[in-house]
C-alpha cells in the first residue's frame, strides 16, 4: 500500500485462497471489513483482527492486517488483552453465533463491563458451520435446519437483547449482503470509543436452509414490505450522549429493548444504541515498545522506595 493515495479495500485483502463455501455470507462481511478499513485508511500493522473458531473465525486469514485465530469462544478476552496492552491498536473481534453466544457467552456478557475500545462482529448464521450444521443459539425453538437430526429443543438467544442487558455501549445489526450499509456500520463501530457489538445476519447456504439469502431479500408476506429495513426509518433514537441523566438513560434503553423485541416478520438493521455516557477502559499508560531495561539488561524499575515502606525495624 503506498502512502500517498487513499487505500482501497484490496489493500486489506490477503493473497491466500479462501475456503468458504460458494455463496457464503461471510464473503460479504469480509468485503465490508476491507472497505471499512480502507475508508478509515488504517495502517494494516495497527489493525489486529482476532477470530474465534468456526467458519467465521477464519476471517483474519483473508485480511492483510494482523490476524489472530484464537480459541473457540475466547475471542473477546484475547482481543481485550491486546487492546489494553497497546491502545494504539485498532482491534476487531470476529466470531460465530456458536462461538459468541454458546461457549463464549460468559465473555460476551462480561466484556462490555470493561468497555475496552474494540469492535466485535458476531456472524449470525443460525448454525455451527464448521462442525457441520448443528443448531446454534440464535435458532428458535422448534426450528430444524438441513443437517439436524431433530428440531432444536432449545429456545433461541437474541444477540441484541443480550447485548443490551450486558451493557455494550454500541449495538448494531447488519446484513452480510448489504455491504454498503454494513461497511458504514463497521466504521461506526470502530469509531465508537468503547466495546461495540455488531450482529450480522449471515446466510449459510450449506447448512441453513431456513434463513437463506432469498428469505432475507424477500418481502414480509403479511405487510408486503421488504423483510429488512433500516431501524432509523422507524424513528428509533439510539443515542445516549455523555452526561445524560440516569432516568433518561433507562428510558432510552427500555425503548431500545422494546424495539429489539419487535420482530414481526420484518427485521430492522442499523444502529440500535450508542451510549457515550460510560467511561472507556483506559488501557496501558506505557507503550509496549517502551524499554523496561537498560542496554545491559538492568531493570529500569526502581523498587527501593517501595521496599523501604515494607521494611521493619
Amino acid at each position, binding site marked *: 500500500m503506498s502512502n500517498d493515495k487513499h487505500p482501497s479495500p484490496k489493500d486489506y485483502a490477503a493473497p491466500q485462497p479462501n475456503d468458504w463455501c460458494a455463496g457464503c455470507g461471510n464473503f460479504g462481511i469480509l468485503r465490508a471489513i476491507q472497505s471499512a478499513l480502507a475508508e478509515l485508511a488504517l495502517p494494516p500493522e*495497527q489493525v489486529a483482527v482476532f477470530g474465534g473458531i468456526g467458519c467465521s473465525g477464519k476471517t483474519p*486469514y483473508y485480511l492483510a492486517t494482523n490476524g489472530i*485465530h484464537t480459541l473457540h469462544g475466547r475471542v473477546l478476552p484475547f482481543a481485550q488483552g491486546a487492546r489494553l496492552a497497546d491502545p494504539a491498536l485498532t482491534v476487531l473481534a470476529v466470531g460465530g453465533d456458536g462461538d459468541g453466544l454458546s461457549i463464549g457467552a460468559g465473555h460476551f456478557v462480561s466484556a462490555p463491563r470493561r468497555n475496552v475500545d474494540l469492535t466485535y462482529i458476531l456472524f449470525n448464521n443460525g448454525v455451527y458451520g464448521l462442525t457441520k450444521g448443528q443448531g446454534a443459539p440464535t435458532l428458535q425453538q422448534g426450528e430444524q435446519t438441513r443437517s439436524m437430526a431433530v428440531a432444536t429443543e432449545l429456545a433461541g438467544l437474541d444477540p441484541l437483547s443480550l447485548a443490551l442487558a450486558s451493557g455494550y455501549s454500541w449495538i448494531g445489526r447488519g446484513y452480510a449482503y448489504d455491504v454498503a450499509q454494513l461497511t458504514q456500520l463497521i466504521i461506526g463501530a470502530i469509531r465508537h470509543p468503547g466495546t461495540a457489538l455488531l450482529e450480522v445476519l449471515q446466510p449459510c447456504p450449506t447448512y441453513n436452509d431456513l434463513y437463506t439469502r432469498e428469505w432475507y431479500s424477500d418481502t414480509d408476506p403479511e405487510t408486503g414490505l421488504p423483510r429488512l429495513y433500516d431501524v432509523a426509518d422507524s424513528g428509533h433514537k439510539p443515542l445516549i450522549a455523555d452526561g445524560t441523566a440516569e432516568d433518561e438513560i433507562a428510558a432510552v434503553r427500555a425503548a431500545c429493548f422494546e424495539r429489539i423485541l419487535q420482530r414481526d416478520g420484518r427485521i430492522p438493521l442499523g444502529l440500535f444504541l450508542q451510549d457515550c455516557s460510560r467511561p472507556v477502559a483506559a488501557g496501558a499508560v*506505557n507503550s509496549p515498545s517502551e524499554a523496561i531495561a537498560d542496554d545491559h*539488561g*538492568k*531493570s*529500569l524499575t*526502581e523498587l527501593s522506595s*517501595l521496599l523501604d515502606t515494607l521494611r521493619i525495624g
Partner: protein
Amino acid sequence: MHSNDENYYWRIGGPQGTGIDTSAHLFARACLFSGLPVLGRREYHSNIKGRHSYFDIAAGTAPPLSVAERVDMLVAYEAETLFRHLPSMRSGGVVLFDQESTGVTLQHSPYLDPSVRERLARWAGATASVDELLALVSAGGVRCYPVSYKRIMQAIADELRVKVKQVDRIRNTVGVALSALLFGLDKGDLCRAVEQLFCASSEHVTLNLLAIEHASDYLLQQGWPVGQPPQPRMQERSLLLNVSQSVALGKLAGGLGLQSYYPISPATDESTFLEAHSTVSHHDGRTLQPQVVQVEDEIAAITMASGAALTGVRAATATSGPGLSLMTEGLGWAGMNEVPLVITHYQRGGPSTGMPTRTEQGDLQFAIHSGHGEFPRMVIASGSVEQAFYDAMHAFNYAERYQLPVIHLLDKHLTSRYETITDLNSAAVAIDRGERCEANAAGERLHPFRLDEDGISPRALLGVPGCQHWQTGVEHDEYGLVSEDPQMREWMMEKRAARLAAIPRELSLEAQIRCDGDEGAPLLLIGWGSTRGALLDAAARLRREGQQVRVMMVRLLWPFPAAALAAEWQRATTRVVVEENFSGQFAALLREQTGLQCDHLIVKYSGRPVCGDALADTLFTIVEGKGEPRLVLRNPWE
C-alpha cells in the same frame, strides 16, 4: 528454654477474624526489632470468620528455614486452640491460656471436626475438658500458665475509665506481650514494634502500649521464669515477606506490563498487592504502571494475558488449583503460538476444590502435561520467598527467550510463610527480551514461525510497521497460515520441541538444580519447591549428628534437568526424594526422564508442610537402615 536445635517456636491460635494474624505479626516484629530473624507460618480454614486458625513464628540467631511440629510456646485464648495444639507441645514448653477457658469440654467446641474430637477423646476421654488436657500435658513436662485476661482487661479499662468492651480488641496484644516477655524479648523492642505496626493511628499505639505495660506488670506479679532468647545477630532493617509479595515485587522488577487474574485462594493476594502498588517509578524518572485486570474467570485470565503478550509487553497471570485446570486450553494456544507468558501457580490441596487453604505439591505432573497434544513449556519452582522474587524475574526471561509459557510453581505454604529477607536486588537478574522482528520494509511477508535451526524464530509483535502477520492455534506454516501438509506438521512439531532440548544445555547449573551441604555425601536429599527449608534444616540436624548429607533442590522441573541431576546422583549411595503429595510425582518424573529410582520416597499429603524436625526424625530411620521405600510423614495435630 531452647528446643528443636537452634530455633524457638512460638504459636498463637484462635478463631479467624479475631486478630490472630496481627498478633503474630506483632510478635514477629518484636523479634526483628530485637535483632532476631524470624520465619512465620499461617494455617487457617477455608472460612471467613469463626473457624480455627493459628500462626507459628520461629525465631533464631540465623534466619530460620522451616517451621517445626513441636511447639515451644503456645498462646491461646479459648478452648479449641488448647484442644488442637496441646498435643504438639514439647516437654519444657510453655502454654499461656485464658483461665476462663477451662471447664469447656470437647462436646462444647462445635468447630472441632468430628474426627479431631474423636481423636482427642481417645487420648483424653470422651468427656474430656480443657482442664484434663492441661493436666495431661503438664504431667509430660509442659508448663501451663493460666492468664486472667478478665482481670488484666478490667485493670486497663479502669485506668482508661471506659467499659471493658471498649478495650477488648487489645486483649491479643496482652497475650503477645506476655509471651514475648516470657520468651525474653526486650520490652522496648516490643513497644517499638507496636509503634511501627499501628503507626496509622496514634490512639491505637497508645492503647497497645498500655496493654504491654499491663502485661509486664502481670508477669512480675506471677513470677513465671523469663527465658533467654537466641543471641541476636541481625543489624539491618529487614523485610518480612511472604511469596505473594516477593513474586509481585519480582514481577514489577521484571517489567510486568499486564497481569490478569480471577480471585482464588491463595493466589489472589499477589494480584491484590500489585493492584495496590502498581505504580512504580523507573530509574530514568518515568513511571511504569502495569495493568492489573480482574477478569470474569481463569479462561479469560490466560487468554487476555496471551492477547497482551502478542503486543510485546510482559504478561502474566496468577492462579491456583481449579484456576490452572481452567487455563488448560489457553495454555495450549500459548504453546502452539510460542507466546511468552508467565503463569504463577500457587499449588493448594487438591483435587477439585480440595483444601483451598492448605498446602500441597500436587500439581507438578499436571503442570507438565496440562493440555491436549504436545507443546513446549517450562515449569520452574521456587524454594523460598526470597528465591521466588528472582525466579519471577527469571520466568519472564525464560518466557521471552524461549518463547513459551512458563509455569512458576509456588504453593500455599509459601504464601503464608513469612521470611526475614535483607534485601531484594532487581539488578541481580539481567533482563533478556529474546529475539524480536524489527520493523520491516514493506513488501516481504513476515514469517512469525520461521523454521530456524534452534526452533526459535524472531518474535512478530502486533503494531510494528511492516510486521503484520498471522497467528493461530491451528497447525500452521511459517507465515502462521493453516497447513495440513504432513511434512510441515513434522517440521513445526520439531521446531517447537527443539527449544526443550536447548534449555537444559543453556541454563546455568544453578538455575536447574541447587545443591547445598557436603559434596559427594552418601546421603542425597532431593526436593523441589517450598520444602527447601525443611530439607536444609533436617540436613543440618543430621550433620550435627555426624551424618554427611547433600541437599539438592530441583528448580527446573520441565524440561527435566536430567544431566545436571545425574551428576550429583552418581556421587551418592542413598537417594531420598521428599515431596508434599500422595503419589510421589517428582520421583515418577525422575524415573520417566532418567530411569533413576530413588531409594526412599518421603511424602506428606495431609495438606500441611513438611517440617524440618519431623523430616529429620524420618531420615534417621533411613540412616539406621530401618526406612521403608515409601515413608509417610503424618501429624494429625497440625
